[in-house]
């Protein structure tokens, strides 16, 4: 496994030169928006870390799928996978390496985002407002981080399974949106059957339940259906897919 090679391969292209600064700008912008504006919008004029991170999850729910699918499936779409596999013919090793590279980028991105959120919350609360509440970090870990991890895992699964940047992105961004909308409709209609079906594919809710310790066996079903099965099928396809 050479995740360093895959990281470098993903980061030294023109696409990366455009995408990464844009992502960083979006994260900085939303962190500032969340942390600095809170005192002006809340009745007690304070700034809360969990709220800032919640605002940050908006761009991150797009940035994480884009980067993850790009790292795992990008070479299939631009055909450079041929060059990669000619030099590193151990296909599962390359796949595992790309997954590690994507995990590294995700971890760095989330760490930077939470760090920026904490900084802007403190600046907004202490310097502009009436105080900053950084004690909600537990909530961040059990809610926002769990949701972002679910986004990452589903994006990874789609990149591995579909091996196409376009299809992977459509699935990684579109499916959670459809599931979220369907969940809202199910609640509005009060249909328990529909609600159960949606729970079975609602990875974000399952991730939150798993993170706060309230999950039962049912919460493992979305993990199985949306992550484990696509990854296993994708790995099989990755091993045998013809190139050229």
């Amino acid at each position, binding site marked *: 496994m050479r995740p360093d090679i895959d990281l470098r391969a993903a980061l030294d292209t023109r696409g990366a030169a455009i995408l990464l600064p844009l992502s960083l700008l979006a994260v900085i912008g939303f962190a500032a928006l969340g942390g600095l504006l809170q005192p002006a919008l809340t009745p007690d004029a304070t700034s809360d870390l969990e709220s800032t991170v919640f605002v940050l999850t908006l761009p991150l729910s797009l940035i994480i799928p884009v980067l993850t699918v790009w790292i795992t499936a990008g070479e299939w779409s631009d055909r450079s996978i*041929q060059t990669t596999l*000619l030099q590193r*013919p151990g296909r599962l090793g390359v796949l595992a390496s790309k997954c590690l590279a994507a995990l590294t980028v995700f971890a760095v991105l989330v760490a930077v985002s939470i760090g920026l959120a904490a900084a802007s919350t403190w600046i907004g609360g202490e310097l502009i407002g009436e105080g900053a509440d950084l004690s909600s970090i537990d909530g961040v870990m059990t809610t926002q981080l769990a949701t972002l991890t679910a986004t990452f895992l589903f994006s990874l699964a789609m990149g591995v399974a579909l091996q196409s940047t376009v299809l992977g992105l459509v699935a990684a961004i579109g499916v959670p949106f459809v599931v979220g909308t369907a969940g809202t409709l199910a609640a509005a209609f009060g249909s328990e059957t529909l609600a159960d079906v949606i729970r079975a594919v609602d990875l974000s809710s399952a991730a939150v339940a798993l993170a706060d310790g309230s999950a039962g066996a049912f919460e493992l079903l979305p993990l199985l259906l949306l992550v484990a099965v696509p990854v296993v099928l994708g790995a099989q396809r990755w091993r045998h897919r013809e190139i050229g």
Partner: protein
Amino acid sequence: MTSTTSSAPTLELRALTKRYGARPAVDGLSFECRPGTVTGFLGPNGAGKSTTLRILTGLAEADEGAALIGGRRYRELERPARTIGVMLDAGSLHGGRSGLETLRLVARTLGMPAARAEEVLEIVGLAAAARKRVSGYSYGMRQRLGIGVALMGDPCVLVLDEPANGLDPEGIRWMRRLLRSFADAGGTVLLSSHQLREVEATVDHLVVISGGRLVREGPLEELTAVAGTRVAALDETALRRALDAHGIAFEPRADGELAVSLAPEDMGRLALREQLVLTSLGADVGAGLEEVFFSLTGQEEPIADEPAPALRTA
């Protein structure tokens, strides 16, 4: 290959078969490429050349048989690019990197020093375009970079698919010299190409396939050597009748003579026995690779005077 070696591995295909549905793309194909030779791999479109090369390089899996490099499959080689340099499709190079970044990434992957990238850029004549992005390269420049990627690991085997495509005359001459010197230093080269004149000028061994099957294999000189005898008689009808009677194959030539699959002395004896007056008799000159290719693959040679379909007038 920077050092002369006689221990370059042999490429060996053993009864290789690959089917897509019921259609065999490669059908029991067997041949060898030995060190010190440039082997031309020829066949019409759809003959199975690219499929064979993909199987050889681990990009596709064979249904039966094996493609071996020094007795091992490509995927079993440790750091295969240090043994076998491959250029199948220059379009697979990432357009978002510069030529230098492309080769540096390859160097890092192969465990070669970073300076090897600059060295190879010089070798392939792209030093001036080192920092230009590959998406801005011409097709010929991409071909050169693709050959550069193949050379990065200092391999002792080269497998190239249509390397002369897009190269200008100087580039073609450069590639010819490169392959020749590579083989002369003991390397093994397998070269697939449609450019028969280039193949003829570069290779010393030929493998011709058609419909996924081996049609002919052998040294270039042998395949393009004397093909038979040219003969003409006062009574051409009697000559044809005599050849038919003895079951001897013949074909009319453009100059009115017949090309006969007999040695000249045997043709002379036959004429004597049949009391034919010959007006000309001699060994046929060696056929060009183009003629050999068309006859072996069962394809019709295009007629020079016939306009291309798009140019026909109504």
